[in-house]
C-alpha cells in the first residue's frame, strides 16, 4: 500500500517537473516572436515606429537627425546618405535620401535593417515611408536613390527622460537576401515611389514655413 502511494507521489512530481521543463523549452523558442513584439512596442534596442499618418503638430524644439549607412561585408554595394545630417522640428515631416550602387557584375537583392540611437529616442522616431520596408533589387552597376519619410513625434516633448537629447542617429545596414521574393523593388517602382513622395506636401499647416522646405531634396 505504502509502495503504491509512493509510486503515485513520484509520478505526480515527475509529471509536473517534466511539464515545467517543456514549458521553459517552449518559452525559449517563443522568445523570438515575444522579443520582436516587445521591441516594437517599447522601442527596445532602438526599434523605430512605423506611422500610418503624417504628423500634424509642429513644436518649436529642434533636433538634429544624423544619417548613418553600413553594408554587410558580403554584399558588394556602396551605400551612403545624401546628407549627413538635417535639423528638424519635433513633429515636422521630413524627407531624406540615401544612395546605393551595386558595384558587382550581377544583380543583387538586399534588405536593410535599422535602428535609432540613443535607444530611448526610438519610440518617438516614426517612419511613414522607408526603403527598408521592402527588399531592394539593384542591377549590375546600377545607382539608385532611396527615400525615407519620417518625423520625430512631438510627444517627445512630454518625456522628461529625453530632455537632454539634441541629436538622434538613424542607422541602416544593408544585408544580402539569399532567397529573394518576387516583391523586390526595381528601378521603375522606385522612381514612382519617389515621385509620389515628392508630390506630398510636407508642409504642416500654420506656423513656420522657413523650416519646412530646407531639407527637401532639391
Amino acid at each position: 500500500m505504502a509502495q503504491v502511494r509512493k509510486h503515485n507521489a513520484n509520478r505526480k512530481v515527475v509529471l509536473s517537473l517534466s511539464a515545467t521543463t517543456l514549458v521553459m523549452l517552449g518559452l525559449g523558442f517563443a522568445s523570438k516572436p515575444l522579443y520582436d513584439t516587445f521591441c516594437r512596442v517599447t522601442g527596445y534596442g532602438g526599434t523605430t515606429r512605423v506611422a500610418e499618418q503624417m504628423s500634424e503638430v509642429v513644436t518649436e524644439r529642434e533636433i538634429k537627425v544624423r544619417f548613418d549607412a553600413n553594408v554587410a561585408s558580403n554584399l558588394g554595394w556602396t551605400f551612403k546618405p545624401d546628407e549627413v545630417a538635417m535639423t528638424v522640428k519635433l513633429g515636422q515631416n521630413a524627407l531624406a535620401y540615401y544612395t546605393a550602387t551595386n558595384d558587382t557584375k550581377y544583380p543583387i537583392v538586399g534588405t536593410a535593417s535599422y535602428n535609432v540611437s540613443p535607444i530611448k529616442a526610438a519610440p518617438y522616431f516614426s517612419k511613414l515611408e522607408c526603403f527598408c520596408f521592402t527588399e531592394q533589387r539593384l542591377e549590375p552597376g546600377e545607382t539608385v536613390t532611396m527615400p525615407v519619410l519620417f518625423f520625430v513625434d512631438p510627444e517627445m516633448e512630454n518625456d522628461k527622460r529625453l530632455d537632454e537629447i539634441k541629436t538622434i542617429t538613424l542607422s541602416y545596414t544593408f544585408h544580402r537576401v539569399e532567397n529573394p521574393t518576387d516583391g523586390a523593388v526595381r528601378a521603375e517602382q522606385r522612381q514612382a515611389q519617389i515621385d509620389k513622395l515628392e508630390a506630398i506636401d510636407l508642409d504642416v499647416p500654420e506656423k513656420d514655413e522657413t523650416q519646412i522646405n530646407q531639407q527637401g531634396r532639391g
Partner: protein
Amino acid sequence: MSDAYGDHKPKFFTRWLFSTNHKDIGTLYLVFSILGGLIGGYLSFMMRMELMEPGMQYFASPHKFSMFASMHGLLMIFFMVMPAVIGGFGNWFVPLMIGAPDMAFPRMNNLSFWLLPVALICLIASMFVPGGPSGNGFAGGWVMYPPLSTSGHPGPAFDFVIIGLLAAGFSSIFGAINFITTIFNMRAPGMTMHKMPLLAWGVLVTSWLLLLSLPVLAASLIMLFTDRNAGTGFFDPAMGGDPVMFQHLFWFFGHPEVYIMVLPAFGIISHIVSTFSRKPIFGYLGMAYAMVAIGVVGFVVWAHHMFTVGMDVDLKAYFMAATMIIAVPTGIKIFSWLATMWGGSIRMTIPMMWAQAFIFMFVIGGVTGVHMASAGLDTSIHDTYYIVSHFHYVLALGAVFAMFAGFTYWFGKMSGYLYNKWLAAVHFWLFFIGVNLIFFPQHFLGLQGMPRRYVDYPAEFAFWNKVSSIGAMVTLVGVIFFLLWILEAFLVKRKAGDNYWGEEANTLEWTLSSPPPFHQFSVLPKIK
C-alpha cells in the same frame, strides 16, 4: 550496520557500467569530474604559459588560443564543477543525509551520468575538426555569441559543441528531476523540510534552477544549430533576427548557472564550518532561505552581463539594483558562517582549512562582483581581466575550494580510508598560494585595461602576467599533490571509523559505516 543483503555487490562491469546505486554513480561522477578538471586545467595551463611573456610562443594562431580558452570554460563548467557538486556530492550525500535508501529514479540516474561521457567526447572531438576559417575547433568563447558562432565558424566543430552541450544539458535536467523528486518524496520519517541538512537544501534549489534555465539554453542552442544548418535566421539581422536576443537567452541561462555551481558548495561549507566549530550552524533557516532567495533573484539579473550592448539607461539601472540586491542573501550566508565560528572551539583540520579559504576568497570575488554590477564602472572594465579575476575568485577558487573541502571531509566516508594529513596540507597550501598568485594580479591587469581572450599583449602588462603564470606552475604542483594523497590513501589503506570527525559531525551519513553498506536504510531512520 551492514547486513548480508546490504553488501551484496554486482560484478565489476555490471556494477560500474549499469550502475543504479546512488553511491556508485556519485563515485563515477567524482572520477569523471577529476578527469574533466585535468583536461580543462591542461588547457588553462597552456594559456598561462603562452601569456607568461609578450609575443606568441606556444600557440600557432590566435584562433587556437581562443579555442583553448573557449573549451577551458565549457569543460570546467559542464564537466568539472557541475559533475562534482551536483552529480558527485549530491548523489552521494543527499540520499544519505535525508535518510533515503537511494535516489527516486535509479535508472534515470544512470542515464544522467552516461550522457556526460558522450557529451565530453563530442566536445573533445570538436577540437580536432575544422571550425573557423583559420583553424580547427570552436573559438567563440563559452558564451557562443552569434554571428561568430554561426557565419564565423562554418566548419562542423561548433555543431559538435552544440550536440555535446545538449547531451550535458539533458543529463542535468534528468538529474534535477531526480533530486527534486527524491527530496520531496523520500525523506525519512520526521525529516521535515526545515530539518533537512543544508547540502540537501543547496542541491534542491540548484535543481530548480537547472530545471528552469537549462531548457532555455537547449532552445537557444537548437536555434543556433538551425541557423547554421537549416537556413533559419533567429539570430541573423539579414533575415530579421537579432544577435542580441541570443545574448538575452544565453544569460537567462548563464546567470542562474553560476548559482547552480555555487549553491551546493554553500551547503558543503555549512556542514564543515559547523562540524569543526563544534557548534550547530548559526541561523539555519536564514541559511536555507538565503539560498532560495539567491535562486529566485538570480533569474532576474541576467542583463548585467550585457551592459555594453546598447541598453536603455532605465533598464541598466534596474539590472544594476537587482544585481546588488543579491549581495544581501549572500551576506547573510557569509555572516552566518562567521557567527557559527564565533566563540566556537575551532579545529583547523584539512577540510576546515579549505572551507576558511573558500569564505575568504568568495568574499573577494563577491566584492568585485558588486563593483561590476555598477553599470557605469562595468562599461569601462567590461571584458577585461577584472571580470576574469572576479569569476575565477567565485568559481575557480570558490566552488573548487568547496569541492576540495567536501572531498577531504568525506573522503574517508566514501572510500573507507584516511588520507595522509601532511600530503593533503601541502596540496592545500600550494593550491591556495598558487591560485591567488594567478588571479589576484589579474585585478590589476583588468584595471589597467588588458582585454580578455587575446593571445598577445603590449609589454606594459608583462610583469603581472608573469606573476600570474608563475602562480599557474605552483598550482600545477598542488594538483600533483592532490593526486598523490589520493593514491597514497588507497595504497596504505588506513581504515576510517564510522565517524572519524567526532560527534559534531551529526548528519545521517555519520551513523553508517565507512564506506556505507551497498544498500542502506532498509529500516528508515526516525528523526526526532
